[in-house]
């Protein structure tokens, strides 16, 4: 038995430590630990509720906007505010727009290096001047002996793509993706003020007042993003996912135990209040739902026929048995509306700053694959029919499919905003005074999955604020029954033929697109308890 520790787990957002046990080349046990906490829920106590969207948007600089929106929705639920059309549309455009760059940046910048043998570029034999330029550049770095940040790296394995043409093309798209990201942030900035970190999403809607010219410029930039998604990102994911990486898909590498949860997002018309959301979000571009797979993991095949249940928000709880927190005497699992955040850094048996969220007492995978299954994306149905399975590749595929729907749909929202702006100033806000006492919650499906904020107001101040965030769902530790969280589940059974080179561990975890800063509500309490035989 060998124990392998990957810490820091890089190319993600935040601080994550993964520890696995390998027996005869296969992972037999796993632990996922968040190792940083800021105590945002604690610092919000006794504050003006109006501060919450700003502060919670700083939970994460990568998916900032969804926190601002979920927070604003929770407060709008508490204040009893209905959004104006302009407010809803501006939030949609902003949120949809950053979904777009977030997903391709994840694919090219954060994940691709796990699948590509970047040094294959040296063997590029083609004549494309752009690609020859990339070859010169990489070879130039090698010759000068300074290939950071591309090295050091895990060694390529049997699943690595090493065709020089493909690798060189994908690296050129890596470079292009970073440029497109910057442009997409400029595009969003017409309605957010600064990017990243929107300042305009507030309780009551969106305070931005873009001019017609700004909206037209936004539209042009949107079309440029659409072109990149249509001609570069989606084709690349389809080509690699159904081509060289299809063996990984067929083996269900990185599949969890088969329970999925998605929340509704991007309301299409009418009121975007929490009431609609609890009915399954029928007017949303992506609806919410729960899938409980029967049978062993990785065995789903007829996904067109799977049963999708509506989300019942009362069934959500969080446990802290393996987390550095205390709960009041006698409670093991609490609903977030009555949740408690109290640190205990010396707790025995704890190994993470994540809590363990559960739905009907079960851990749930959240994120693109959950969204794809709940919404039965036609291309995902086909992928399963052809023998693709849940796991790493399916997640990358769903991300690309989501991005495609979003770029296509977004233009209608922008056009409607231009129409409204042509008729007069946009009024995105419907503000109201803070109620004396109230409770509310708001949900949204963040790029990384189901996100919920719960707030309780007393005497016009925040009495309690609780967030159950995507990476807590996915990265949470064992619960009071010893049941593992989705990251831990997904690692079990994965091949690690060489414990000095645990490339599958990072592939699997990065396929979830971990975003840890928001999830960790500490320390390495395990050190000393577990003997690390092989620190990789």
């Amino acid at each position: 038995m060998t124990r392998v520790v990957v810490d820091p787990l890089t190319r993600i957002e935040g601080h994550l430590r993964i520890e696995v046990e390998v027996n005869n080349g296969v992972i037999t046990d796993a632990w996922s630990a968040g190792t940083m906490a800021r105590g945002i829920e604690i610092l919000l106590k006794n504050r003006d509720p109006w501060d919450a969207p700003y502060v919670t948007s700083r939970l994460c600089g990568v998916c900032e906007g969804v926190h601002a929106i979920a927070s604003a929705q929770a407060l709008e639920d508490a204040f009893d505010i209905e959004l104006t059309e302009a407010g809803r549309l501006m939030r949609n455009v902003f949120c949809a727009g950053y979904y777009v760059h977030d997903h391709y940046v994840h694919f090219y910048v954060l994940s691709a290096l796990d699948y590509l043998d970047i040094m294959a570029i040296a063997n590029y034999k083609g004549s494309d001047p752009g690609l020859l330029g990339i070859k010169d550049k990489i070879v130039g770095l090698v010759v000068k002996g300074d290939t950071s940040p591309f090295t050091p790296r895990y060694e390529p394995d049997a699943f690595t793509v090493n065709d020089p043409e493909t690798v060189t093309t994908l690296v050129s798209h890596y470079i292009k993706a970073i440029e497109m990201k910057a442009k997409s942030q400029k595009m969003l900035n017409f309605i957010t003020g600064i990017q990243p970190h929107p300042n305009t999403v507030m309780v009551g809607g969106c305070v931005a007042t873009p001019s017609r010219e700004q909206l037209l410029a936004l539209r042009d930039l949107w079309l440029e993003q659409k072109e990149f998604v249509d001609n570069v990102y989606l084709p690349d994911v389809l080509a690699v996912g159904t081509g060289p990486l299809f063996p990984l898909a067929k083996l269900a590498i990185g599949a969890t135990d088969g329970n999925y949860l998605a929340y509704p997002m991007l309301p299409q018309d009418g009121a975007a209040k929490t009431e609609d959301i609890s009915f399954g979000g029928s007017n949303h571009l992506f609806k919410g739902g729960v899938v409980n797979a029967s049978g062993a993991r990785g065995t789903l095949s007829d996904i067109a026929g799977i049963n999708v249940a509506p989300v019942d928000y009362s069934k959500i709880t969080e446990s802290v048995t393996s987390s550095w927190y205390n709960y009041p005497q006698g409670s093991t699992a609490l609903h977030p509306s009555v949740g408690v955040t109290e640190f205990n850094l010396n707790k025995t048996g704890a190994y993470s700053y994540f809590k363990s969220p559960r739905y009907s007492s079960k851990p749930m995978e959240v994120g693109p694959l959950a969204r794809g299954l709940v919404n039965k994306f036609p291309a995902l149905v086909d992928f399963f029919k052809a023998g693709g399975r849940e796991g790493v590749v399916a997640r990358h595929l769903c991300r690309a499919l989501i991005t495609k729907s979003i770029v296509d749909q977004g233009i209608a929202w922008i056009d409607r905003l231009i129409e409204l702006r042509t008729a007069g100033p946009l009024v995105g806000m419907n503000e109201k005074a803070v109620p004396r006492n109230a409770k509310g919650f708001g949900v949204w499906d963040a790029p990384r999955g189901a996100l919920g904020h719960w707030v309780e107001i007393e005497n016009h101040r925040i009495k309690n604020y609780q967030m159950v965030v995507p990476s807590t769902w996915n990265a949470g530790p064992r619960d009071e029954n010893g049941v593992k969280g989705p990251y831990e589940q997904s690692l079990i059974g994965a091949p690690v033929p060489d414990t000095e080179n645990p490339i599958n561990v990072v592939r699997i975890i990065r396929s979830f697109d971990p975003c840890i800063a928001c999830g960790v509500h500490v320390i390495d309490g395990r050190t000393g308890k577990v003997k690390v035989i092989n620190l990789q």
Partner: protein
Amino acid sequence: MDLATLARPQLNRRDFVKIASLTVAAMGLSQALNPRIVEALEQVAPAKPPVIWLEGQGCTGCTESFLNNLEPSAVSILLDTISLRYHETAMAASGHQADKALTDTIKAGGYVLVIEGAIPLAQNGKFCTIAGKTFVDIVRESAKNAAVIINVGACSSFGGIPRSGPTDAVGYLFRGKELHHVFDDVGNKPVINLPTCPVHNERLVATIVYYLTFGKAPEMDNYHRPLAFYGKLQHDNCARRGQFEARRFVTDFKDPAQQGRCLILKGCKGPIAFQDCWERQWNQRSNYCIQAGVPCVACSQPEFYQETSPLYAHDYDFGVK
């Protein structure tokens, strides 16, 4: 910038001229310095200066902001101008390899140290650990052999939002307005703070280039902020200042007739915010907070966020009731 340009193995003179003019403009330097910066860049480019970029109690927002550079592009800075030896979000290495890259670079010394995120001091630093070490220890180790330290964002400058939480989060030199002296043992080296939430990409790039050219920190205020960026007050330069003087204020965001008025009654902290957002703007100069219609929360200030909360309530004494 087209792909072929980006893909050149080496930046050419034209690229350096671009970076130099950005720096000159951003820092308010004399145009006459342009050739000197170009020359310095040409000299450093063959042996790119090593950079360690640490992240503690951050949100990766400052990294995201850095990646928003277009002219010069983030990629050309990453591949051609600096040698990024350690950066958890961008580097290919994982686990033990990453840790070794950090240790080796520290040993070699003479690097630019960029710190993102606050440093939690409570409970012996246990609120942030990487590879089994506390962030406090990692910062101390890395600071010892650094040539210069650049704190990006409100968090590593002054503690930012985490300072208001339970973890005794501080910036590298400051806890809010106060010097905390935790890292006094690492020697005298320039420490530059670039607050705002997140860091402004242009302020960061221009600061790095300035340091590489002149080998010292630019002129700074008492809070170690470059005067070129933080020397003037938002309120004194605000496009809505006329509205302020005319006592025309936004009191209700719902009222379209109030759009464009002064935001002070909605909590605008422009009267205490030293920055040049009013001129520089954000994201290729496309917009900034007040222009978008939202009050400035003074994220450039050491008071942010503990003393500037509530953000959207008018409770500072700015002479307006």
